[in-house]
């Protein structure tokens, strides 16, 4: 059955056909003398990123950008292009971490980094100013989510969440995974199957299950943020109508959950906006697939609906800008005006003829609760009409204990460190 699992995983846009094929491979290996009848030809669905295109858009040359899966040496990168506000400095903190995605910080200072297309989790240890990179876990299924609490590393794969207790004392000999919750991906879904993972102030593990395509009707588990209690395994849904969130954090003062969300593609260059959301009560619904950005009815699913049925975003971030990791800043290093800001890693647009994003921005929230977007780290985007338009892509931000901020870049397999000095 190893084969069937693999094939389904490798053909996310073709899961039905791959399933038929996998089943026939399995059967033929068991009953070799009686080959099963030929399966009827199943038309392959388009890859999930193309789903929802109009007929005219079939000739579009827009496409997602694949990471450089073997990583790239920092010495090859044009660092002089990076720009930060005065007093801030950026340096390479660690490299050789192919497809570095979400980040988590251990009690003893170990930084953990997950993968989305690849299958590994890395541990990066600071040894007297030099970083040692270890491939900690391998052979996992899209281990995009990593979170740390009280000695335990939690990992969200596409189908389950696992825990590795006492991990920082066992980086060279990690314990077996213990399952917190399984069967999160019973349909081997296409589309947004990778998960972000974070521990809430309530000690529960929060994670997303994205929509299984660009614009499709989700099932009751999909297009939502859930939480699971690692002590009991009890699962609850926290927010509905969330197409795909790959970053969230809690306001350190109010303890409210905030999250980023990716809106659908293939409406236009300028619509809809990706969004930032605040969860202020139970059972909030942010609109997918019926309403986007709080005020734009979907051309197909919006028929007969109104956006007034749904909860609007806290802030529109920009069309196709692809917000991923976000964290509130409460460190001691950056100037006072940065306290309580939200830093957001913008992975950058592909479904837009003029590209934007590929940066880290900050959201300033005033005393009235009004949120404003400001630039912070820029310079990865070098040619807004280019293909590719960028040389690096921020995925997650992580505030370190000294107040400095790490930024992961999955395109190059590098983690940067941003620091501030008056």
């Amino acid at each position: 059955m190893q084969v069937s699992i693999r094939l389904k995983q490798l053909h996310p846009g073709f899961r039905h056909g791959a399933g038929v094929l996998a089943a026939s491979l399995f059967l033929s290996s068991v009953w070799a003398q009686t080959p099963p009848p030929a399966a009827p030809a199943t038309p392959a669905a388009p890859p999930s990123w193309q789903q929802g295109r109009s007929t005219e858009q079939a000739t579009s040359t827009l496409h997602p950008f694949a990471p450089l899966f073997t990583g790239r040496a920092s010495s090859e990168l044009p660092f002089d292009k990076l720009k930060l506000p005065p007093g801030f400095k950026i340096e390479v903190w660690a490299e050789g971490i192919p497809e570095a995605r979400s980040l988590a910080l251990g009690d003893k200072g170990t930084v953990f980094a997950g993968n989305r297309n690849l299958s590994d989790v890395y541990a990066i240890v600071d040894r007297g100013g030099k970083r040692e990179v270890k491939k900690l876990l391998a052979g996992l299924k899209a281990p995009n989510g990593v979170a740390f609490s009280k000695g335990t590393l939690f990992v969200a794969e596409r189908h389950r969440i696992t825990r590795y207790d006492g991990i920082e004392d066992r980086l060279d000999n990690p314990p077996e995974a213990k399952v917190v919750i399984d069967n999160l991906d019973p349909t081997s879904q296409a589309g947004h199957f990778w998960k972000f993972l974070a521990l809430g102030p309530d000690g529960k593990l929060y994670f997303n299950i994205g929509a299984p395509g660009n614009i499709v009707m989700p099932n009751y588990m999909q297009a939502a943020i859930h939480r699971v209690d690692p002590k009991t395994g009890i699962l609850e849904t926290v927010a509905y109508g969330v197409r795909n969130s790959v970053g969230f954090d809690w306001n350190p003062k109010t303890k409210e959950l905030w999250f980023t969300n990716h809106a659908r593609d293939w409406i236009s260059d300028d619509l809809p906006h990706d969004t930032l959301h605040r969860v202020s009560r139970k059972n909030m619904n942010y609109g997918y697939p019926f309403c986007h950005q709080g005020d734009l009815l979907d051309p197909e699913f919006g028929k007969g609906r109104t956006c007034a049925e749904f909860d609007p975003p806290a802030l529109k971030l920009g069309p196709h800008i692809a917000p991923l990791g976000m964290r509130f800043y409460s460190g001691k290093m950056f100037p006072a005006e940065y306290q309580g800001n939200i830093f957001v890693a913008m992975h950058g647009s592909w479904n837009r003829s003029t590209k934007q994003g590929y940066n880290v921005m900050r959201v300033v929230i005033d005393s009235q609760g009004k949120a404003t977007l400001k630039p912070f780290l820029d310079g990865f985007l070098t040619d807004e009409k280019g293909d590719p338009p960028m040389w690096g892509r921020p995925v997650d931000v992580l505030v370190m204990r000294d107040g400095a901020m790490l930024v992961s870049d999955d395109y190059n397999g590098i983690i940067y460190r941003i620091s501030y000095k008056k």
Partner: protein
Amino acid sequence: MNLSKRIAAFATAGLLAGATACPALAADAAAGMQKAQVCVVCHGPEGVSGNPAVPSIAAQPAQFIATQLLMYREGRRKDAQMSPFAANLTNTDLNNLAAYFTAQKLTPPAAAVDAAAAEGGARLSQQHNCVQCHGPALLGQQHIPRLAGQQREYLKTQLRGFKAATRFDMDGQMTSAAQPLSDADIDILANYFAGMR
């Protein structure tokens, strides 16, 4: 137990302990050329294949070369001949090989394409949106391969594999794109691509 089997055993267990990833060094085409000695036995001098069933790798996009070698190493793309060669290569090796082969000139052996096949191929490659990803001259880009001047039997095998959903496909794009192709379409497209310069 050889190294690749050991890695596979660890991977099955979901654990790979103690492997320290080397910091990536700048891609080095000269080092790649040294590593390439074993590749050119089948793929031809400088990666220009003379064997219809073996692909040319000269002038392929560097990201395509490195990605495919990595997928062979990780066991996602499988081939009885290629998989063992990729099994022990580091990411630095892959980047070096990619830097070397992408810089070579593809001077394909003359592939006779009659006028009718050429016209049919041009029409089919428009109709099936090949140019949208592989580029207007089908020279490939980023992780997407060059088709122009590629060996025809190799191309036919790949397209048939995509149609049967047996060929490794990162996101399902080619598996989907190959579904409407008839065997005759595949022959025409392969001949057309092979004859392009």
